[in-house]
């Protein structure tokens, strides 16, 4: 890999990883408040289609991102109403939000499939993704409100006893998560692969969810996890393009040099790191929000 090729490689990695960072950091904030929202994929799809359709109709990028964030707030608001007010099961509600999002986005986008648009340059968003991770980290560990949010996630009864409104704080965390997911979706449909296609998020929402566990609920590690995954997935393509083969003294070199192995390598790399992280059970126990997926009602 020469210098120019390396720069090109880095660019592709940055562009490909950014949406997962946005969605991951949004979901992290939601989970830190003690709510597990499995609807990331659905919210990303709705965000993607809203941004795309708005752009086609109005021609304004700003409105596109704005409306996409509104769509994320709507989707996550729906989720918040169900799990916070009606106290439905978070796992089931989140899953149905994803399924709902798949259907809703297909319906909204039906007429707009294959409409050509001018894509936006991704670089501002790449910078923004780093900035947001930094800001969330600052918010969590350097501000009082961040401490309160974490307290709600760790023990909602204590936070309630101290006089904090658990439901209000969780609502805000869910809405932030939803808007970040939708924003990630709009980045995909406007910058990354400028088009609308049904189901175009193609599982990135689930990767974002896995990233939160991977990061052991720490913002900076979202970046590390996302770039391990994104970097490996682009690097394996690079190796395939170069026709890279392991030398014969490597055991099972045929297997390791095969395209199927290359394609599973990003998942494998992430899994290996996850295993290492979770080998310390105490660490996982300490870092996971203690009230994750637990419903809160004032009588308890």
């Amino acid at each position, binding site marked *: 890999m020469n210098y120019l090729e390396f720069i090109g490689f880095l660019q592709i990695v940055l562009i490909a990883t950014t949406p997962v960072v946005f969605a991951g950091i949004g979901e992290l904030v939601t989970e830190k408040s003690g709510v597990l929202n499995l609807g990331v994929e659905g919210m990303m799809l709705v965000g993607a289609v809203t941004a795309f359709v708005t752009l086609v109709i109005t021609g304004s990028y700003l409105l596109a991102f704005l409306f996409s964030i509104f769509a994320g707030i709507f989707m996550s608001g729906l989720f918040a109403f169900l799990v916070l007010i009606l106290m439905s099961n978070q796992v089931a509600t989140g899953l149905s939000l994803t399924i709902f999002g798949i259907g809703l986005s297909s319906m909204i986008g039906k007429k707009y499939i294959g409409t050509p648009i001018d*894509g936006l340059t991704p670089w501002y968003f790449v910078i923004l993704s780093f900035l947001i991770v930094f800001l969330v980290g600052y918010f969590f560990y350097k501000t009082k409100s961040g401490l309160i949010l974490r307290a709600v996630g760790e023990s909602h009864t204590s936070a309630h006893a101290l006089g904090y409104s658990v439901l209000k704080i969780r609502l805000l965390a869910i809405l932030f998560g939803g808007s970040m997911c939708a924003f990630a979706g709009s980045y995909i449909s406007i910058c990354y692969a400028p088009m609308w*296609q049904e189901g175009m998020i193609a599982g990135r929402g689930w990767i974002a969810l896995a990233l939160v566990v991977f990061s052991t609920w720490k913002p900076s590690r979202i970046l590390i996890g996302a770039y391990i995954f994104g970097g490996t997935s682009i690097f394996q393509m690079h190796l395939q393009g170069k026709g890279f083969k392991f030398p014969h003294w490597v055991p099972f070199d045929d297997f390791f040099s095969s395209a199927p192995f290359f394609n599973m390598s990003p998942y494998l790399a992430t899994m290996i790191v996850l295993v290492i992280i979770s080998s310390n059970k105490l660490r996982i126990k300490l870092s996971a929000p203690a009230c994750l997926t637990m419903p809160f009602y004032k009588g308890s």
Partner: protein
Amino acid sequence: MIKFFKYFTIILTFFGLTISTAYSDPKKVGFIYIGPPGDHGWTYMHDQGRIHMENQLGGAVTSTYIEGVPENADAVRAIRKLASSGHDLIFTTSFNYMDQTLEVAKEFPNVMFEHATGYKRADNVSTYSARFYEGRTIIGHIAGHLTTTDTVGYIASFPIPEVVRGINAFYLAASKVNPGIKIKVIWAFTWYDPGKEADAANTLINQGADIIVQHTDTFAPCQAAEKAGVLAFGQASNQEEFCPNAHLTAIEDVWGPYYAARAQAVVDGTWSSTETWHGMDKGMVVMSPYNAKLMSADLIQEAINMEVAIKDGSLHPFAGPIYNQAGELVVPEGQNADDGMLAGMNFYVQGIDDELPQ
């Protein structure tokens, strides 16, 4: 009320499976799609075929489709769902539905099945495919002429005979024009992921490819080529509107007449298990208009002449001598590869500097 029904149907989406049902009538034809009909690629063309069939046969048939069916055990459920809901003819439109189609066909001997691009048949299971590789020969010829870096990037989906055949046909034609041409293959192991396809295209362009060929289903690679200022070929349908300054031509799949004929056979009661493999001569494979902005008039004429030659049989994409990577003669001079070899093709021809995943 109709609108309400439409919304209701969509809300009933279960794990990405949407069912859209038209009005009810005697013969019901079902389709299993791997992607959404809006991919402007593979599934889109099958859906165009379905619409053509409905228009041709008027009220004699109605059709239903299930989209986004994964190529695993879920496919069994989806196919069985169609079979058990009174469908008379079911088209399963992706290679890896093969065993699932046969499994369900055994349970429903009175339902007719048609499996696209496969090779396993039964009394109530036909197979059909198009000779896409004829189109790959033409784009290979064009690429051989137009590449300046002598490097072509090829985004492949899965190492199945259909895809391998495409790569070989492309390389044989390209290397005939330009013996020094190199082909870089990235196996994406997906048919449908716009982001990943764009990443693969960008990686190949970054490594010096100045023409992008794809065997995946969306127009993301063509778009990436447009952005980077290199050339590309469309896949399955004409994708020129998405990448007007990169799109040279595309290999289009035209299923409509076949679907209409098979549905008609079911209506008439004359359906029997067959094996169909049509190419340009029967109009199942069609080249999109050649881009005159990017290709010289001479090159366009050459491509058109090749089309004519393929149609009348004077040009065969796999005419001997053909050697495999080990240097063994697989098709002797003066002979053409037979359909058996083409259908099961699992080797690269000599000159491709890569290893085929097995």
